[in-house]
């Protein structure tokens, strides 16, 4: 061996050492973790033509949404596993406290049977919808080209399970009080057949089959989630308030805290994506393609919320305001 320079230890990982700033815990444990970008011909250490290698070459690295260095993406809140659990354990303590206290006050017994009927039709079937968000976030995460983007999607997936869990919990509780209303039994039928849900069902079934990573992250986070959050969380929460169901109103408010966090990371993502010429038009094209389906879903669902004035119009406007705030 020739006398080469002997590498000296550095203060941090070699891939972070060039910068002047001391890396945060977030960067130490989150940045540049995917290794499937090392060989463009074979993301995984097997035959280059293997089905899954072709899948990643086409859908992850072959997307039209381009950036010279997606690994430079940073979650604005720098969430790591450790802080995620600190944060959500606190949030769950709050929600469990709500469940506990409202139950002690016999909240459900005070619910008008007509509102209980609305809950059976428009609230509890949302566990299917929340589960589709969980699935879609899991997909976008596994095909994202940078670990910092993947992580945001995986935490979002866990939050979707959280919303699903709240819904399952409340469904059982409601069934204890309203045992004739079909709580726990009829949700699948409502989800599959009720006109109010068909827009979201079509949107999510189609969104779940978008394999291209660039389009999938846009459809999920800029189209589907805002539409769902502005209706099944925000407008339904308003309706709940109008109908004396403070528990659901406070619960949807609590879930909207997660949603606000999701919007902050996707906003940072869009800001980064727009650094590359051509991405703006590309994203706008995807929005134009998917917005009508989301609008249809908003209309169908909000049409069943008569006591929220202008529900559909305000929900549609809110989704557009959000996108406009990102420069889209």
């Amino acid at each position, binding site marked *: 061996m020739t006398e080469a320079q002997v590498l*000296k230890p550095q203060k941090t990982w*070699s891939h972070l050492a060039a910068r002047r700033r001391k890396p945060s815990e977030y960067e130490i444990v989150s940045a540049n973790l995917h290794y499937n970008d090392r060989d463009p011909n*074979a993301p995984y250490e097997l035959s280059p033509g293997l089905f899954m290698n072709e899948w990643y070459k086409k859908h992850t690295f072959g997307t039209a949404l381009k950036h010279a260095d997606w690994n430079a993406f940073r979650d604005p809140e720098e969430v790591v596993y450790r802080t995620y659990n600190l944060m959500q354990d606190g949030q769950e303590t709050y929600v469990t406290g709500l469940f*506990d206290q409202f139950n002690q006050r016999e909240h459900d017994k005070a619910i008008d049977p007509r509102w209980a009927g609305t809950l059976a039709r428009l609230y509890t079937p949302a566990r299917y919808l929340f589960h589709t968000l969980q699935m879609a976030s899991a997909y976008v995460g596994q095909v994202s080209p940078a670990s910092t983007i993947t992580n945001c999607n995986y935490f979002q997936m866990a939050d979707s399970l959280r919303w699903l869990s709240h819904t*399952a919990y409340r469904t059982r509780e409601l069934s204890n009080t309203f045992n004739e209303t079909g709580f726990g039994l009829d949700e699948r039928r409502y989800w*599959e057949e009720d006109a109010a849900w068909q827009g979201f069902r079509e949107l999510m079934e189609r969104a779940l089959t978008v394999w291209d990573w660039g389009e999938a992250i846009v459809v999920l986070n800029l189209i589907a989630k805002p539409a769902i959050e502005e209706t099944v969380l925000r407008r339904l929460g308003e309706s709940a308030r109008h109908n004396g169901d403070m528990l659901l109103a406070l619960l949807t408010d609590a879930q909207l805290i997660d949603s606000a966090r999701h919007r902050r990371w996707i906003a940072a993502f869009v800001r980064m994506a727009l650094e590359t010429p051509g991405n703006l038009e590309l994203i706008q094209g995807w929005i134009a393609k998917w917005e009508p389906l989301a609008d249809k879903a908003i209309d169908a669902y909000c049409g069943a919320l008569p006591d929220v004035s202008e529900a559909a119009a305000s929900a549609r406007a809110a989704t557009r305001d959000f996108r406009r705030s990102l420069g889209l």
Partner: protein
Amino acid sequence: MAVLNRMDWYDLARTTNWTPKYVTEDELFPPMLSGEFGLPLSAWEKYDEPYKQTYPEYVKVQREKDAGAYSVKAALERSRIFENADPGWKSVMKAHYGAIARGEYAAASAEARMMRFSKAPGMRNMATLGCMDEIRHGQMQLYFPHEHVSKDRQMDWAFKAYDTNEWAMIAARHFFDDIMMTRDAISVSIMLTFSFETGFTNMQFLGLAADAAEAGDHTFANLISSIQTDESRHAQIGGPALKVLIENGHKAEAQKRVDIAVWGAWKLFSVLTGPIMDYYTPLAHRKQSFKEFMEEWIVAQFERALTDMGLDLPWYWDIFLKDISQTHHGMHLGSYFWRPTLWWNPAAGVTPDERTWLEEKYPGWNDTWGQCWDVFIDNVVDGNMAMTYPETLPYVCNMCQLPILGTPGKGWNVKDYPLEYNGRLYHFGSEVDRWVFEQDPERYAGHLSIVDRFLAGMIQPMNLEGALAYMNLAPGEMGDDAHNYAWAEVYRALRETRKAG
């Protein structure tokens, strides 16, 4: 009662299958991603995970676990454990973090594959938690070694290893990519969670935690045992899937996946764990030999797991049982001889006392492995250090990507198992490695081993120096003897005594 019990609502949280209408079931769950078993959604709804946990329980329990592990780390941060640890133990840490940390993070995506594409609703939720677990394991096992990067350049490999062409990392990626990154959801559940995690890592982590405690590294011991407690939650994912497959007449396909994954896991263990237990760990701290460990924790445990499940022992079980007293000795000799190609410093582990122990645990060791080490030791004592380093690459197996080895010396049985496929000659280190290839040649046929790359001129210059550069290893990173050949002093003294006598 004011708050419901978990089991009052648990089933509702996994009643999430519906009949798609705007896309077909095959579009929503493409068979190549979901599993080509031809079973409809309804068949998978019988899936029932034995270890149940809800979201609120998860964040609470995991928050507490992290609080424990991170506070132990913080409390011991200034204790200079790293500076004072036995060099053999430091090598264990370096090998472990490099080969494992980012593999654990990758496993989060394997879990996400099951979350999105499994038709079993219970599996989808458990895989959501499993995905979170693997993020934890990836992040912790980067955060903990990062504490030591400023002391030792080799610690940088806790992060860097997965980005390199270092041979052991090619082997690690080849195995993990095969069982978890490029398989459908159901196959991931069988090959990663059932075969690898239930069969191997669960037990390995227990052993490693015990070793760390013996070595006085309580931060690491605590980290590893904390991680291990998560394993049992997500390692269970494959079991109920196997049950569904067997009940629906797919036992043979299930069995084949188990057989492939277990063999690959064994080969990786033979190079990563075997040498650590029988050579790197100081003699005083060795509780049992690698062979005894395998027999007690892996063989017995796994045989039970398989038969409980209604599966058979893999067809190669006799070969495996024989190999557990041989293979890792060759892997150790090979990796030690090629020590500049490692990112840690291997411990030779062949002092007279250690050789007595090896002979006792592995009768015949001195007549076989010992013969190679005799020559090696003479060269070190004679100061012929150049003779103790390699000049070429060893032949490696086109399946496990590890050197093709056998028993040397008086027990010589080194054998290649070649196969010609589509005009190319492949080499395999065992009958089983070749069998794995034959089960699905197109998965593997287009891959080039590091020797194939060398022979194809992809490594320049075509010598060891070129190979080291190709493996991204520079001086300061390359491995050498963990104890700086201090062990050779015993032999030098023995020789002096002999001369004097």
